[in-house]
């Protein structure tokens, strides 16, 4: 039972972390909470649903199309709703972001209808693994503790998530565009003066974040096999909380925050089943707690208010 919960929490936490990375990158550069990020995640899930289940494309192609489509949407959102507000007060961009979020959700309702749809998963991802042959877990499965049922998906989700974040870290810390990103997050005006095309780097940031969100959306749709237009709202909020918890602006922090949030959620419900109604409240309580105790998060740098 504990092993089961451990893998559930690991998978959920890795997905939260993957979404949180997108929030943290955009916030680190623009100081903008990209409310629409959770809805890009939703779009990614829908695209893969339509590509593979509705139009019967092979999974690899469907995944590629979904990520391409969601990335494009992320770029469009930045171009249309955020770029005109670069010089405006930060709150204006935030209100615009809330507007975009509601727009995408309702676009989902209009285009995909509000009905949740079931995702049919490929067999090879859901057949339980022959755990007993691999690891001697009998000591955990004795009688009342119950049997561990592990599907390959439960292992693939965290593995893929960590690989993607590793790639992202490589881009941000070892390549030229990554250097530009880090420079912008320090001082946008000076970076512009250095001849960096700031708008393009910001667009790249949105593209990377959206691609990761789409990946997360696809894996989410496989793990909890259904899609609906509002599926991005709660994971989006929670991932943002994870980003704040880990220290906004820090990519490893976002991942750690996501994992902590995943474990808190799964384990609290596992050990205190009567609290399951409050499950969604845990994340918000965690957020308020960290904001009061250490507003910069676990790995965050101190950001001084400029006067």
């Amino acid at each position, binding site marked *: 039972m504990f092993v089961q919960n451990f893998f559930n929490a690991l998978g959920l936490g890795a997905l939260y972390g993957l979404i949180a990375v997108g929030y943290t990158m955009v916030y680190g550069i623009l*100081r*903008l*909470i990209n409310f629409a990020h959770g809805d890009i995640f939703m779009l990614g899930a829908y695209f893969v649903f339509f590509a593979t289940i509705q139009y019967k494309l092979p999974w690899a192609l469907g995944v590629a199309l979904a990520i391409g489509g969601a990335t494009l949407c992320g770029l469009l959102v930045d171009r249309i*709703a955020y770029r*005109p*507000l670069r010089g*405006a007060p*930060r*709150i*204006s961009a*935030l*209100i*615009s972001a*809330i*507007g*975009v979020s*509601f*727009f995408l*959700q*309702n*676009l*989902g*309702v*209009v285009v995909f*209808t*509000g009905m949740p749809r079931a995702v049919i998963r490929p067999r090879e991802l859901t057949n339980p693994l022959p755990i007993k042959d691999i690891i001697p877990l009998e000591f955990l499965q004795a009688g009342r503790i119950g049997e561990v049922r592990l599907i390959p998906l439960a292992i693939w989700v965290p593995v893929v998530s960590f690989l993607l974040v590793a790639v992202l870290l490589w881009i941000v810390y070892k390549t030229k565009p990554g250097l530009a990103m880090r420079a912008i997050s320090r001082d946008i005006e000076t970076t512009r003066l250095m001849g960096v095309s700031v708008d393009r780097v910001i667009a790249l940031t949105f593209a990377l974040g959206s691609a990761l969100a789409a990946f997360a959306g696809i894996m989410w749709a496989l793990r909890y096999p259904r899609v609906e*237009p509002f599926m991005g709202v709660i994971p989006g*909020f929670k991932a*943002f*909380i994870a980003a*704040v918890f880990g220290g906004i602006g820090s990519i490893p922090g976002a991942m750690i925050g996501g994992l902590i949030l995943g474990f808190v959620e799964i384990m609290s419900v596992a050990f205190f089943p009567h609290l399951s*109604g*409050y499950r*969604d*409240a845990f994340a*918000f*309580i965690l*957020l*308020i707690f960290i*904001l*009061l105790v250490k*507003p910069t998060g676990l790995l965050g740098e101190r950001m001084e*208010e400029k*006067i």
Partner: protein
Amino acid sequence: MSNGTRNAILNFLAVGGFVYFLWWAPENLDGYKLRIINLIAINAILGLSLNLVYGMTGMFSLGHAGFMAIGAYVSALLVLTPGQKATMWILEPMVPWLLNLHAPFLISLVLGGAAAAFVGCLIALPVLRLGGDYLGIATLGFAEVIRILIANLIPITNGSLGLKGIPAHTDLWMSYGCLGAVLFFMVRLMNSNFGNVLRAVRDDEVAAKTMGIDTFKIRVLAFTIGCFGGGLGGALLGNLLTTIDPRMFMFIQTFNILMIVVVGGLGSMTGTIMGSVFVTTMLEWLRITESPMTIGSLRIPGIPGMRMLIFSLLLIAVIIFRSQGIMGTREFSWNWFFGDWGDGRKAKGAR
């Protein structure tokens, strides 16, 4: 005729005309229209209270729906009769001390507002140390926690089943009476020294601190007053719609009020009222896009979700192309209406 006399006559005519309208409307308009007119007043109250917090003091709060929920539940639990309460709690029995608690409508309104203000004050003490968008996220988090608590505290709130059969106490006189009272209070507040202090805190907190203003205390006070408005609006809303449940107070509710404030113009009270008229009627009018219609021989099926789609596009358009809203930070006055901007404009030209 001097401007002063003209303005006095116009004020008298406007107020008189409006009172006549309130007297005329219940006899001559159908229930649906009356409900919209009521909603305009309630939304205006909610907008004014959010405007005090955000437009006038500069605190970006996204928690209004939570305070509305508190106000609505407190008021509803007080006006429901013990007989009604005894039959409503199906899942779990109600806590006994609440069963016989009963209060008249007006007192329940005040208590609803006061409960929201109390919770708001408790939340404000830790949260207002944060600034900017962190404050927005934290208040949003609190609103969500309030909503989840309401959905789970079944012995007190009847959980997700909600409360039904609340007597429909809110009528035009009630809602516009409350709006009038709130408006009167706000105008007096903003024209007082306290109003100046609020604006100082909004425009430059550091400068305000240097002038010896205890900015934290001022912000907590303004936030608490705003929460009272939120609770009052929620209480009126519950008594208008006669049923409330936790799903009513999701983030979308805050979004609608935010829209009213942004469309009307941040920091303008008359703007907020215009925003309320515009947004409330727009939200109702856009319902036609979700119901099937026939134009000539062409039959267009209703498209669910279209209403909020158009509405959110509108918000994005307003914030990109006219971020000052209808009124900006100005207030409506007859002088402004008739286009004599007085010396202000001439002075600008001369400079």
